[in-house]
């Protein structure tokens, strides 16, 4: 915004708001924001596959605020789009606007995160990962791959965020089977590398023997790696690291042996979303819950998968 000042300048390509009658499917997509690399990959995937599938996309970024997302959805309803898709910032509080969409006969698809609405006719389908399941997968690997007493430190996501809550819950439920696995410290690293590093630095000083780090996303894990290195230990060997997401930087670290296990949380929902959207608009039956195809990676699998990784 530096330099000249004034109003003009910014890219406002093409105005046209209407345009629903040229046979093209119009989708309104209300994204959470661009708070992480994962989210940006997700946005990109949706945009690219919309172009590929010939869908006209109306994109709105809510800057991580639920109220903005509500406004965006209302404005989609007013602009009479054919289908609305969105990744809810929070699970709660969607009934009213979903009802409005239903009254306007616009089908809704949820992506990435669920809503807690009791009336499940308010949306057609929910496409996305299962955060609890991700936590379970991480826990399961730990249970399967360690013996004896294990001291775990946990790097949580943003306090109150759904993935943070669910990944913690899933993880804890599985390791409960092994009383000798103990979570000795747990703190929020806000899903960022800087947060992960700072928290890990403090953990390393207050807990002399840490065996495993469980990070709710790759970024915090990558931050923890830096802290572990600075403390003169070897990440992946002296301290094992488990993370969730499998973004490219994480996969690289995994392939290099600095991370031990990653649970995938796939952001590339675009193609599946477009497919579902077309079916929904055409009135076809779709399953109420579509879980994204997701896997887990060990170090060997990472080496094999890395060259084809897109994000």
């Amino acid at each position: 915004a530096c330099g000249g000042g004034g109003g003009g300048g910014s890219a406002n390509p093409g105005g046209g708001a209407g345009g629903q009658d040229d046979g093209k499917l119009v989708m309104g997509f209300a994204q959470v924001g661009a708070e992480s690399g994962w989210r940006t990959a997700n946005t990109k995937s949706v945009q690219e596959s919309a172009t590929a599938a010939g869908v006209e996309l109306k994109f709105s970024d809510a800057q991580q605020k639920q109220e903005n997302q509500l406004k965006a959805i209302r404005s989609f309803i007013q602009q009479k789009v054919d289908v609305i898709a969105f990744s809810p910032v929070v699970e709660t509080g969607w009934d009213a606007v979903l009802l409005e969409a239903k009254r306007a006969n616009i089908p809704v698809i949820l992506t990435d995160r669920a809503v807690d609405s009791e009336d499940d006719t308010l949306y057609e389908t929910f496409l996305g990962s299962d955060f609890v399941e991700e936590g379970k997968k991480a826990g399961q690997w730990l249970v399967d791959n360690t013996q004896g007493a294990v001291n775990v430190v946990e790097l949580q996501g943003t306090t109150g965020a759904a993935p943070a809550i669910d990944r913690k819950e899933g993880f804890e439920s599985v390791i409960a089977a092994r009383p000798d696995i103990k979570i000795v410290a747990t703190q929020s690293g806000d899903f960022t590398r800087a947060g992960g590093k700072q928290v890990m630095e403090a953990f390393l000083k207050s807990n002399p023997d840490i065996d495993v780090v469980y990070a709710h996303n790759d970024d915090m894990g990558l931050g923890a790696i830096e802290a572990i290195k600075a403390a003169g230990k070897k990440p992946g060997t002296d301290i094992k690291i488990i993370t969730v997401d499998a973004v490219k930087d994480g996969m690289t670290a995994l392939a290099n042996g600095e991370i031990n296990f990653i649970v995938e949380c796939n952001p590339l929902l675009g193609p599946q979303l477009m497919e579902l959207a077309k079916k929904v608009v055409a009135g076809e039956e779709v399953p109420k819950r579509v879980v994204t195809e997701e896997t887990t990676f060990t170090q060997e699998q990472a080496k094999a998968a890395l060259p084809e990784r897109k994000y």
Partner: protein
Amino acid sequence: MPSRAGVSRLVWPLAALVALIALNAVFTPSFLTLRIQDGHLFGSLVDILRNGAPTLLIALGMTLVIATRGIDLSVGAVAAIAAAVTCVHIAGGGSAIVGMVLALALCVLLGLWNGFLVTVLGIQPIIATLVLMTAGRGLAMLITEGQIITVNNDLFSQIGAGFLVLPIAILISLAALVGVALLTRRTALGMLIEAVGVNPEASRLAGVRSRTIVWTVYVFVALCAGVAGLMLASNVNSADANNLGLWIEMDAILAVVIGGTSLAGGRYSLLGTLLGALVIQTLTTTVYTIGVPTNVTLVFKAVVVIAVCLLQSPRAAGLLRGRASRPSTPDSAEVSAP
């Protein structure tokens, strides 16, 4: 030398700092231990210094801005821009030096921009800098295209994570602090800044170049923010345009205020700002070290902040000294600026 605004007021931030460190030492006996590792100092105290360096640097610039009755909300965004420019440059195969110089030059421009809005157009500082706070982060993301840019550059990683016995980051910040202290107290700059902050009209009539001075401090704080951004990025070897330096403006302002500088402008204390920044960083580290549950963290912080400023207040000081001393309020009538 750096402080003139009542040394006695600095006793309480100092006490808070000592108390926090003592609290840590009780919970984690190893907290105070320092050892040499790979030729540099290693320990929790060193972490506090290193992690507090960016906040300190920004708070340093912010102190001068606040002394002129201003405020700069855009520092976090400016830090993100600096980090983004440098990391994108390095990731694209450029040299770290050139990247950093480019970034800091851009920061100077951004500072000029803020200063222009405040001094020439006469827009209230909080709102003038809000523009860059919002748009700047978008700019940073535009540069990185929303990706976290990871870099591997030894020189670059020294700035935030390197050591010369002590962390290089804190050495930079302290050098800046001492530099500014010398610059403002050995020259007349400090006095002129305070004069502009206390009574702009009287200063104008006394022939002070208030516009130039105010403009300069905005450029300076932007430069500080730029360097802080480089530190933050270098510490994790990556630029995260969305999260880098998020809310750091609040931490910086808080550090300034804890240090005893009034948001109403005028007298400032650089030593106080140093203490303030250290208190804030120690507080954060304390939360991690003594294992405050995440859902209690904020309440804990609130209690500490309130305790520090209550102790600092003149009234509390009076109460502590015992009610014997009469509560005669020093008359602010003729002291306060119009």
